């Protein structure tokens, strides 16, 4: 525990205490990092110059294109919320499921999955979902705990459903292709949505009061006219979501730019509904600015912490604790998942991905564990890091947008069952690897010794070498005559039969 001194574990304790104090998280994290930075200089772990890494790391954060998704999707959500279109979507779905107890929760989970298929960042997803659906759920009598829980959980689905920032980072760290990680995550995504829906189903039977159906005057009697009205009310939002997804699938835009196009799309839709006003835009810009600044300043604060943690040999401490785990692959996986689950109380996924995964990957690989499966498993597990009370980022984001009437303890208590469900999914993925590997395109098993490659293009219209028999015009330097290479047709692969 203390093989690398008392400081790395002390830093964890320090972080918890500093944050509990109640000062804004971003500055508390920065302060605890710098506080231990001074200790590190005093103990000779590093010099003052080491802290000069901080501006470089800040620069790395603000120049990370992927993070642009945060303002874009927040802005889109803010416009949709203010012009009521997103409410139309959720209320529409709610009305369709209206007579069913738990209908709104189903709607949130499904909309969460759809948003997850558009965005890759939990922040954008939780915030968009929370802004849109929390007031509605509370208005129609859901318990605050269930409402916040289902939103936080549905918002974090985005990190398992492609496109996903977490999967991108993990693929990078594991040295696997992003595409394969995306394919591997399909099974667990479907499983997760199913588990969430089953939970609501069970709840609606066991404790129907916590998930009331919409009141009759809200959902109205079922008529074909109502169905048509509901469907047409949902059309704009669905069109927008498919516009965003579509621009990615058509190759019109990168996932980040799709967010920006989504903003423009939301503005156009709001205008079509004659709801686009300058005050509305200003209000949306204002809240987007605050949330973006708040979220990214947390990242900036936590990078102060993790730099000093690195300087204190924190990563070697963790590596040391990992060495020598008994029990073969399954023992390793169970230990690793418990370890990451605990670690996720303290660190966010960036830190886990950057600090811990590189230490785990070689061990996993040596044990014969498929790294795609391993990566998806870790991804599902790390999803809990967004949901852990009291430091889960999804809970911060939710707290930041929830009405004061929602108590923080409600948000924390509400998260617990969903963390439990995520752990069930972790267990399923551990003991049923096919849930990941089934979706992977199996490359043809080939014996590389049978692959014959005829390299195209020497001569012909390819990169022709000068014929070797021709003197290049420098007397005495003519190359020894040799037959020039025969021209070749373009690439051919002939696996020898």
């Amino acid at each position, binding site marked *: 525990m203390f093989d690398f001194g008392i400081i790395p574990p002390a830093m964890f304790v320090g972080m918890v205490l500093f944050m509990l104090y109640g000062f804004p998280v971003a500055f508390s994290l920065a302060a605890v990092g710098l506080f231990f930075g001074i200790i590190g200089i005093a103990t000779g772990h590093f010099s003052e110059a080491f802290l000069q890494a901080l501006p*470089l790391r800040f620069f790395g954060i603000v120049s990370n294109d992927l993070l642009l998704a945060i303002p874009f999707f927040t802005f889109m959500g803010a416009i949709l919320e203010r012009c009521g279109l997103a409410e139309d979507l959720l209320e529409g779905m709610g009305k369709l499921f209206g007579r069913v107890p738990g209908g709104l929760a189903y709607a949130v989970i499904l909309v969460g999955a759809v948003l997850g298929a558009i965005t890759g960042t939990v922040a954008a997803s939780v915030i968009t979902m929370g802004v849109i659906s929390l007031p509605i759920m509370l208005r129609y009598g859901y318990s605050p705990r269930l409402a916040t829980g289902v939103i936080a959980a549905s918002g974090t689905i985005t990190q398992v459903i492609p496109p996903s920032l977490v999967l991108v980072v993990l693929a990078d760290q594991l040295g696997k292709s992003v595409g394969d990680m995306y394919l591997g995550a399909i099974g667990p995504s479907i499983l997760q949505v199913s588990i969430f829906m089953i939970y609501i189903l069970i709840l609606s039977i066991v404790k129907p009061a916590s998930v009331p159906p919409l009141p009759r005057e809200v959902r109205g009697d079922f008529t074909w006219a109502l169905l048509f009205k509901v469907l047409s009310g949902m059309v704009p939002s669905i069109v927008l979501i498919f516009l965003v997804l579509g621009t990615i699938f058509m190759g019109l835009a990168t996932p980040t730019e799709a967010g920006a196009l989504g903003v423009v799309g939301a503005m156009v839709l709001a205008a079509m509904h004659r709801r686009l006003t300058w005050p509305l835009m200003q209000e949306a810009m204002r809240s987007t600015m605050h949330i973006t600044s708040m979220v990214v300043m947390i990242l900036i604060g936590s990078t102060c912490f993790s730099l000093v943690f690195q300087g204190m040999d924190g990563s070697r401490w963790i590596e040391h604790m990992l060495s020598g785990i008994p029990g073969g692959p399954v023992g390793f996986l169970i230990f690793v998942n418990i370890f990451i689950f605990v670690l996720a109380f303290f660190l966010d996924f960036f830190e886990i991905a950057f600090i811990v995964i590189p230490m785990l990957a070689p061990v996993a690989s040596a044990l014969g564990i498929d790294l795609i499966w391993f990566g998806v498993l870790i991804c599902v597990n790390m999803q809990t890091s967004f949901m852990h009370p009291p430091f889960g980022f999804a809970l911060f984001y939710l707290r930041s947008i929830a009405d004061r009437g929602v108590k923080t303890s409600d948000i924390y208590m509400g998260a617990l069952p969903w963390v439990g469900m995520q752990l069930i999914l972790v267990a399923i993925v551990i003991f049923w690897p096919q849930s990941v590997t089934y979706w992977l395109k199996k490359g043809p098993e080939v014996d590389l010794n049978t692959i014959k490659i005829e390299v195209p293009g020497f001569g012909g219209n390819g990169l022709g070498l000068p014929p070797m028999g021709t003197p290049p015009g420098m007397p005495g330097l003519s190359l020894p005559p040799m037959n020039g290479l025969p021209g070749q047709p373009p690439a051919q692969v002939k696996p020898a039969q």
Partner: protein
Amino acid sequence: APAIAQENPKIAWRMTSSFPKSLDTIYGAADDISKHLAASTNGNFTIQPFAAGEIIPGLQAADAVSAGTVEAAHTCSYYFVGKDPTYAIGTAIPFGLNGRLTNAWFYEGNGNTLMNEFYATQGIYGLPAGNTGAQMGGWFRKEINTLDDLKGVKMRIAGLAGQVISKLGVIPQQIAGGDIYPALEKGTIDASEFVGPYDDLKLGLHKVAKYYYYPGWWEGGPTVHAFFNLEKWNSLPKHYQAALTDACAFANTNMMAKYDMKNPPALKQLVSEGATLRPFSQEIMEACFQASIGIYGEISASNPYFKKIYEDQTAFKRDAYLWMQLSEYTFDTFMMIQQRAGKI
């Protein structure tokens, strides 16, 4: 005993790599340096490697070393062309030297001396510490047969090569690392370069852009550098400097050896999974060559360091490729003919 302690002081440095651990061949060179140094100094002088982002973001390595934030970095000099184009020559410039000649120029020519004259202005001392050998030209969604085919191609390619190829109508495009795959898959970009078969296979780009072009004329034999904070380097005892120089030289040799062992099977794997090999045409190569010469002229006009080092390298290149025609070229060509004929 105190005298010995003074001769062999305990020194512990940090080395930030610009590469993730997943690029095990390139990242591994930092490990090689670390292990060899510790062994040859009896563990008294150690360097702990860190992957990109653990301490310093990959592209900030030069700033970190010159400020003394970390004592050392393992990085590509050309990542920092934005500060001064002279950085590019340290790694490779388009139509520069192949891997073997790069080493000749650095070790026995003026390369290392001249580059360090420049690096000194940046507070850095540099040593070659890895070479990938000639790289591949990257992955294209469509075939590139003529110069016209290049026009409007959106390609992820950075640095001087991006400037060169933009003169031919290619649009150099900046895409976040993790976005390359989906961007290529969906056609947001049309092409992307990376390293060579072994590393490219891991990225899986062949699944979304099947034409695999060669050669990577912008990287005929790029050097990966070990950068050291100049003051810290100068403060080392002479025998520690020697031990570190040797460790870097080993890493330099060993990286190319690794790539030469790992690339052939990876190439077969890529082709078996659908990668289609294509050479850049003579026409394209020559146009790019001419564009490069033009750019070197422009930079030389305003940058004396670049001019001096570029001219030195070019003078060497002129004679070296004469010698290569007699030596490697004829031998290699004969052996390639035997390989094609299936006689090996």
